[in-house]
């Protein structure tokens, strides 16, 4: 019952006027960001993180959490109205959402998406509230070897489950880690990797510089290129009667919603997976278990409900490892984790002990954010449709401007601004060649933590590397991580062998 006492404390924090205001404001901003084609939660959180220095850390994370939530709701809006996913997490929503809009059922699709998001969000927050404290309790026993093993596992999931080009994924992880090593060596205090003796490198490369570069500048360059063509906004009329009718129609989709919510939540916990694969998997399963699989892709409500409940559940799921273990479950939570370091909080299980108000304030605010996102979403559908008509050539310079100021503000150095621009342009050019960017962002956030825990372990064990494997917990995690890393290699070898066998004439 301790959980309920904590949660009650959390609600007291979340309902302070400032925090409640930030939840509502954050949801609205998140919905807007999510609704805009090309921008998703990760872009919104990266670009707006520097703006949160105005308020205390608890309010800041509440605001960013609300943006995260709102963006998950908002992604569906452009998927349905434009047929362009508002964020990668809403790709699966276009499959049936767009056909529904074309048939004049846009309002039905929008309401289904909003309600499914709400159900997914609610179920996942309850799961989160129940799971987080015991997990944090277990994690309290973790020392540096376990921490390091967990980080290896986080990177291993990208290689084992990522599915992208493996050498490029691995490259992305390494370059992120190397960039995190720039600055002063954490053990000896000696400067390292100071290019051209530029003083700007001494304080290291701030993760925000990379995050805003890639998710701000790089993403916008990407969107500028793909949004050249004209897009058509569907019409939607929203009246109270139609909302009620739409809600009644959703009765038959409850099973799909529940499936999407649970699936999304557990997929969201995995570092490499997150909301995008979670929603695609939920769509696939909904289609498989449906009595009428042929109607999918032609405007089946279940096809909207499944991915939308899953992506909201996944966004909450990805916060579980972030808060309890200090390992982010998605690029967005990687940025939130980096934010915690900037705000002076030590990520990891100790958060639950030392900063209980921060953790429970955030958890309680997610309940509130979920409700407000639903209300704002349904209440302001016409406003969001108007937003979609806003020309991109007005939004783009505004967002570029935000990136430039946001890139400068945390460290107040022009050096970082130039780095951000370089990262953005190079990141965009690499992304065009299928280099995944999320592992690099995760790596630059986790890099200093990983290096410190590794070297602390080795100093403690007098340079004995077996320390990582003989401790039961870290040993198990390490073995799982190694299996994940070598899984693709085994597949490659197997394919080669099979290839050779098929070539040899019988």
């Amino acid at each position: 019952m301790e959980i309920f006492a904590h949660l009650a404390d959390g609600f007291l924090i979340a309902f302070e006027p400032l925090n409640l205001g930030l939840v509502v404001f954050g949801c609205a901003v998140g919905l807007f960001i999510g609704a805009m084609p090309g921008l998703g939660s990760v872009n919104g959180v990266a670009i707006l993180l520097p703006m949160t220095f105005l308020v205390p850390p608890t309010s800041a994370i509440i605001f960013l959490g609300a943006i995260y939530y709102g963006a998950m709701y908002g992604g569906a809006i452009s998927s349905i109205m434009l047929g362009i996913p508002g964020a990668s997490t809403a790709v699966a929503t276009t499959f049936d959402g767009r056909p529904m809009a074309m048939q004049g059922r846009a309002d039905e699709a929008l309401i289904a998406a909003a309600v499914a998001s709400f159900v997914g969000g609610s179920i996942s927050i309850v799961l989160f509230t129940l799971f987080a404290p015991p997990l944090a309790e277990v994690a309290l026993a973790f020392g540096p070897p376990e921490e390091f093993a967990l980080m290896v596992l986080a990177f291993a999931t990208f290689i084992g489950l990522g599915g992208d080009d493996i050498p490029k994924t691995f490259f992305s992880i390494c370059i992120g880690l190397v960039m995190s090593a720039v600055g002063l060596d954490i053990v000896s205090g000696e400067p390292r990797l100071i290019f051209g003796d530029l003083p700007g490198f001494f304080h290291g490369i701030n993760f925000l510089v990379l995050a805003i570069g890639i998710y701000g500048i790089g993403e916008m360059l990407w969107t500028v290129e793909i949004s050249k063509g004209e897009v058509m906004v569907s019409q939607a009329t929203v009246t109270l009667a139609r909302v009620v009718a739409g809600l009644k129609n959703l009765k038959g989709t409850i099973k799909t919603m529940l499936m999407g919510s649970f699936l999304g939540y557990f997929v969201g916990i995995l570092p490499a997976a997150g909301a995008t694969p979670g929603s695609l998997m939920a769509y696939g399963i909904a289609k498989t278990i449906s009595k009428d699989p042929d109607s999918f892709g032609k405007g089946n409500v279940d096809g909207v409900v499944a991915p939308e409940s899953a992506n909201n559940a996944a966004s909450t799921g990805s916060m579980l490892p972030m808060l309890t273990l200090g390992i982010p479950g998605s690029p967005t939570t990687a940025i939130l984790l980096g934010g915690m370091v900037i705000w002076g909080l030590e990520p990891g299980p100790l958060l639950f002990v030392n900063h209980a108000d921060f953790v429970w304030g955030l958890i309680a605010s997610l309940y509130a954010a979920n409700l407000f996102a639903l209300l704002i979403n349904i209440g302001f559908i016409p406003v969001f449709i108007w937003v979609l008509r806003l020309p991109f050539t007005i939004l783009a310079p505004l967002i570029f401007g935000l990136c430039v100021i946001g890139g400068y503000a945390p460290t107040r150095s022009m050096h970082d601004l130039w780095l951000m621009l370089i990262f953005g342009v190079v990141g965009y050019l690499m992304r065009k060649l299928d280099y995944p960017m999320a592992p690099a962002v995760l790596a630059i956030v986790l890099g200093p933590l990983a290096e410190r825990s590794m070297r602390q372990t080795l100093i403690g064990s007098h340079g004995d590397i077996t320390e990582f494997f003989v401790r039961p917990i870290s040993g198990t995690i390490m073995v799982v991580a190694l299996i994940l890393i070598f899984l693709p290699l085994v597949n490659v070898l197997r394919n080669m062998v099979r290839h050779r066998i098929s070539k040899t004439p019988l």
Partner: protein
Amino acid sequence: MRVAELVMAIAMAVFSLLLMWKSTELPIGWIPGEGPGGGAFPFWLSAAMLLCCIAIIVRWVLRASPPSRSTEAYMDPQALKLFALVAGSLTVMVGLIHIIGVYISLPLFMIFYMRVLGGHSWKTVGGIATATPVVSFFFFEIALKIELPKGMTEPLFYPLYDIFM
């Protein structure tokens, strides 16, 4: 696309070598009883980067990765022009911040973008280009107490500092 894939892999391989060379400024070996030296972490990671680049090049030769098989242009002329304009004007804006500060440089960029690339009316362009610096001044300088770079326009802000700070 094929050429771009190879060029990027080679460029990144060279970058990895540079990082490896730079890491050797600190001990990269194993210090007995203490573990790896300060340069070991970046050195071996850069070495791994180099290996990845070699793998990417091998896959390019084998035509194993999608971009190495693609016959599409990396950027068609229209996309290249747009990229050059946007990235170029961004670079010019950041460069100009050093000289005339963010409050002049940013609106100039916005005017260029909205007018030249977007073709919007002067009323819209003017409104947004005026509102942005005013809002950012109040948000950053007054509320957040973060001074944004002003370059040679710094003296113009003295009266404003007197009023608001």
